[in-house]
C-alpha cells in the first residue's frame, strides 16, 4: 500500500503507506489486487470487484497507473446490494410458496396431504419434519419426512404430551400462535426419522391453523449438518406463511373426506345390487348413470330371490322420469315399496296397482316405467312371467341367434288412477337369455355419423351375435356397444339386466334340476 485518502483511512483503520495490503484490507480486495498483477498482460480484463467491509458493501474499481501501481476506487454499494439480496430472497420464497400451494391445493386426501406437508417442510424449512394431526381417541396420525425425501404416514398409539407443547397445539390452545422452540432432548423416538445425519440440535413446533378447529402441528428438526445450506432456505417469516397454507389444505382435505363419507353412506342404499346366480338361474346387470361424475340416477334394478329353488325370484328393472340425485331418491322409494310388496309378487297386476297407488301422491310429481319378471328354474329350462308397465319389453336371445321381443304391454305407474298390463310367459332353453334394458341403451345418440340413435335394430343385431354367451359377458357386451356408440356424447341413464338359463352346469355341483 503506497497511499490512501482520508475516506479510505476511515474505512481501513489499519491501512497506512508501507503496510502489506492483505493486512489492511479484506481478503477479497487483496486477492483481486493479486489477480490484477498476474493478469497484467490483458489490460482491459480489469472488472470491478465487490465485497463486504464491516457491515457495508463496497464496489472496488482498479485503475492502473503507468508505473505498475494501481489505484483502487471504492464506492459504497450497500443500499443496492441489500435491495438485490432481498429481491432474490423474495423471488425464491415466492417460487417455493407457489410450488407448495400448487402441490397442497391438488390433494383432497387428508393422509396424502399430511405426507405432502411433511415432505415439503423437510425440503424447504428444515432437515426433517413431522406433521401431527388431531384425531381424538383414534390414535395419533403422524407423517414423518426425513432429509432423503422419504415420507412415512402412521397412526401411532402415542401420547401428544410426549412432545412439549404438542397437546396444546393440537387442541387449539398453543402457548403462542407462532413457532416455539422445543428441547431436542425431549423428543420421543417416533418424531425422529431414521435417515437423520446426526442428533437433532434444534427443534421447533408451529401450530397449523385450521378452519375453526386446529388442523395440526408441524415439528421442524435440524441436525446442524446442513447449516451451510441454511442461507439457501427461506427466511423465518416463511414458516408462518407455509403453516397457513398447510393448515388450510389439511382442513379442506379433512372436510372433503367427511363429506365423501357421508355421501357414500347415503348413496349405498341407492346403488344397484351386485347380481349372481340364484336357484340355478344366472343373473347379471350393468348400470351407467348419465353424468360422468354421478354414481346413481333414475334407472334401477333389483333381483329378489325366491325363498327356495321352487319359488319364483322377482326381477325388476325400471326407469324414473328425470335424472340425477332427485330421480335416484324416487328409485329408492320404489325399490323399498316393491320390497314390502314382495309377498304379493305372484300377481304382477296387483303388485303394480299397489305401487301405482303408493306413487300417486300430490307430493310426487314423477312417474316411472317398470318391467317385472317372476323367474323359476324348471329342469334344464327357466320359466319367466314377464310384465311391462309402460316399459320397453325385454328381448329373448335364443341359441340360434334369433332375438324375440316379449309381447307384453302396460301402463306406466305413478301417473294414472287406472292402469292395465299384460303378463307373458317365456321359456328359456339352456344357453338362452332374457334381456331387460332401459331407453338409455336404445336412445343413445352417436355412432359413426355422430347424431344417430342406436335404436332397437342395432341392439337386436348386437344381441343376435351374443347367442350362447354367459350373462355377465352379454350385459358387458351390450354396455360396450352402447358406450362405443355414444363415443363420449351425453346420454341418459343406462341399465341392463340379463336372466339366463345355464348352458353348462358345473360338473362338481351336479345338475340342480
Amino acid at each position, binding site marked *: 500500500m503506497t497511499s490512501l485518502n482520508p475516506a479510505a483511512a476511515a474505512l481501513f483503520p489499519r491501512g497506512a503507506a508501507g503496510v502489506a495490503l492483505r493486512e489492511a484490507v479484506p481478503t477479497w480486495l487483496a486477492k483481486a489486487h493479486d489477480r490484477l498483477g498476474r493478469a497484467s498482460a490483458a489490460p482491459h480484463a480489469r472488472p470491478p470487484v465487490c465485497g463486504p467491509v464491516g457491515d457495508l458493501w463496497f464496489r472496488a474499481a482498479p485503475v492502473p497507473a503507468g508505473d505498475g501501481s494501481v489505484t483502487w476506487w471504492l464506492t459504497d454499494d450497500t443500499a443496492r446490494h441489500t435491495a438485490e439480496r432481498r429481491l432474490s430472497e423474495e423471488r425464491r420464497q415466492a417460487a417455493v410458496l407457489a410450488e407448495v400451494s400448487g402441490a397442497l391445493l391438488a390433494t383432497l386426501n387428508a393422509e396424502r396431504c399430511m405426507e405432502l406437508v411433511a415432505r415439503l417442510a423437510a425440503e424447504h424449512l428444515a432437515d426433517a419434519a413431522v406433521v401431527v394431526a388431531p384425531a381424538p381417541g383414534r390414535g395419533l396420525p403422524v407423517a414423518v419426512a426425513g432429509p432423503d425425501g422419504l415420507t412415512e404416514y402412521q397412526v401411532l398409539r402415542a401420547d401428544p404430551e410426549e412432545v412439549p407443547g404438542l397437546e396444546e397445539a393440537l387442541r387449539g390452545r398453543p402457548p403462542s400462535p407462532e413457532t416455539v422452540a422445543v428441547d431436542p432432548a425431549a423428543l420421543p423416538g417416533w418424531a425422529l426419522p431414521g435417515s437423520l445425519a446426526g442428533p437433532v440440535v434444534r427443534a421447533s413446533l408451529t401450530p397449523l391453523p385450521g378452519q375453526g378447529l386446529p388442523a395440526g402441528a408441524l415439528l421442524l428438526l435440524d441436525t446442524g449438518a446442513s447449516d451451510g445450506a441454511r442461507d439457501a432456505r427461506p427466511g423465518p417469516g416463511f414458516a408462518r406463511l407455509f403453516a397457513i397454507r398447510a393448515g388450510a389444505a389439511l382442513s379442506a382435505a379433512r372436510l372433503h373426506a367427511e363429506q*365423501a363419507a357421508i355421501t357414500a353412506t347415503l348413496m349405498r342404499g341407492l346403488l344397484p345390487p351386485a347380481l349372481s346366480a340364484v336357484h340355478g338361474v344366472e343373473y347379471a346387470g350393468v348400470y351407467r348413470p348419465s353424468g360422468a361424475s354421478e354414481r346413481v340416477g333414475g334407472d334401477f334394478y333389483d333381483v329378489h330371490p325366491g325363498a327356495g329353488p321352487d319359488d319364483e325370484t322377482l326381477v325388476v328393472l325400471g326407469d324414473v322420469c328425470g335424472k340425477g340425485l332427485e330421480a335416484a331418491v324416487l328409485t329408492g322409494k320404489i325399490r323399498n315399496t316393491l320390497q314390502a310388496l314382495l309377498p304379493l309378487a305372484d300377481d304382477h297386476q296387483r303388485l303394480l296397482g299397489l305401487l301405482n297407488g303408493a306413487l300417486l301422491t300430490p307430493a310426487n310429481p314423477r312417474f316411472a316405467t317398470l318391467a317385472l319378471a317372476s323367474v323359476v328354474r324348471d329342469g334344464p329350462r327357466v320359466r319367466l312371467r314377464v310384465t311391462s308397465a309402460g316399459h320397453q319389453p325385454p328381448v329373448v336371445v335364443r341359441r340360434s341367434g334369433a332375438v324375440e321381443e316379449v309381447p307384453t304391454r302396460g301402463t306406466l305407474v305413478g301417473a294414472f288412477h287406472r292402469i292395465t298390463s299384460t303378463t307373458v310367459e317365456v321359456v328359456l332353453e339352456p344357453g338362452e337369455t332374457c334381456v331387460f334394458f332401459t331407453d338409455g341403451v336404445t336412445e343413445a345418440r352417436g355412432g359413426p355419423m355422430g347424431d344417430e340413435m342406436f335404436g332397437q335394430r342395432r341392439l337386436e343385431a348386437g344381441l343376435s351375435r351374443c347367442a350362447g354367451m354367459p350373462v355377465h359377458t352379454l350385459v358387458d357386451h351390450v354396455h360396450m356397444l352402447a358406450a362405443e356408440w355414444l363415443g363420449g356424447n351425453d346420454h341418459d341413464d343406462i341399465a341392463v339386466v340379463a336372466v339366463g338359463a345355464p348352458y353348462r352346469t358345473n360338473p362338481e355341483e351336479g345338475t340342480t334340476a
Partner: protein
Amino acid sequence: MTTQHPARTGPGTPAVLTQEVHERLWAALRDGDEYAASGVVMDAVEAGAGVEEVLLDLIAPVQARIGAEWAANRITVAQEHSATAVNERVMAALAHHPAHRPPPPHRGRITVACVDGEWHALPARLVAEVLRRRGWEVGFLGAHVPTPHLVAELHATAPRAVALSCSMPRHLPVAHRVVAACQAAGFPVLAGGRAFGPDGRHARALGADGWAPDARGAAEVLGSGLAGSLPRPAHLPVEDLPHLDDQEYTSVTRARRRLVKETLAGLEDRFPPMRAYTDVQRDRTAEDVAHVVDHLAAALYVDDDVLFTGFLTWTADVLTARGVPAVSLDPTLDLLAAALPAAAPRARRILTAGRAELAAA
C-alpha cells in the same frame, strides 16, 4: 420351441407350461368352457408352475392368441368376447383360490384402471394380480373407468401410484387427460398397454411419470421408486405436446361427423353397389370410416405417423382375412384427404404416409 404365435412363450417359461397346456387352454376358451379352462389352469399350478408364471406365461399369451384368431377371422367377435370373459373368470378363480392366496399386502396401495372408453381389461387385471402377488395392496377398477370416478377414488384411497392401462391407440387423447387429472390430484402415473407404443414413446409424450412394457416391468418400475413419488405438477395438455398449438387435432375432431359423412357419400359415388347395402353393411362401412378418422385424430394428437400406418396395416390384414381386398382402403384415404379442412399439413402428411404403407403392403 417354435410357435406360430409370437407372443406365446418367453425364454423363462417354466417347463410345466408346455405347448400342449397352451393348446388345451386355448381349446377350452374357444369353446367358452369355463370349467375346462379352470381345470387346465389349476392343473398347471398343481404341477408346480407359479401363479405369476401361469398368469403371464399361459393366460396372457393365450389371450393374445384370442385377439389374433379374431383378426384372422378364425373366430367370431362373440367367441372372442366369450373367450376373453372366460379367461378373466379363470384368472379371478385362480386369484381367489384359497391355496394360492397372495401374501398380505405390505407395500402400500396401487390403483389399477383402464382409461375411459377402453374395454380391454385383461392386461390391467394381469398387472393387478402380479402386483398383489408382490405384496402391494391393489384397487382394481376394471375397464372403461369414467375419469371423475377415478379421481374420486384416488382422493378417497390415496394410493402410492396409479397404474393406467390403454390398449387402443385411438384412446390416447383421453389417456392424456386421465394422466393429467391423476397428476393434478397429486398421484404419480405409470402408463402401460399397447396404445403407448412398443417403446413407451407415447407414455413419455403424454407426460406419464413412468412406463412399463408388461406386468413384470410394471411391478419393477413401481418398486424402484415411482410409487410414492411426487407427480409432475399440474399443467396444460399443450405443454406436453406443443404441436397441438396448430389446432389441427381440434379441427379434425370437430369436423369428424362431416368427414365421415362426406367420405361415405364419396364411396357411394365411386361404388354404386354400396347403395344396395343392407343396414348392417352400411353400419359396418360407416364404422370403418369413423375408425380411420379417429386414428387420424389420435396420430395428429401425438404427432406420430406410425400410429396411423400401424392401424392401416392391421385393418388391411383384418379385411384381407375376410375376403375384402385391402386396396379398398385407398379411396377412403383419398376422399378423406379431399374432405380435410383447408390448412391441415400434418393430417395430409399422415394420410400420405398411410397411402404409401398400403401401397407397400
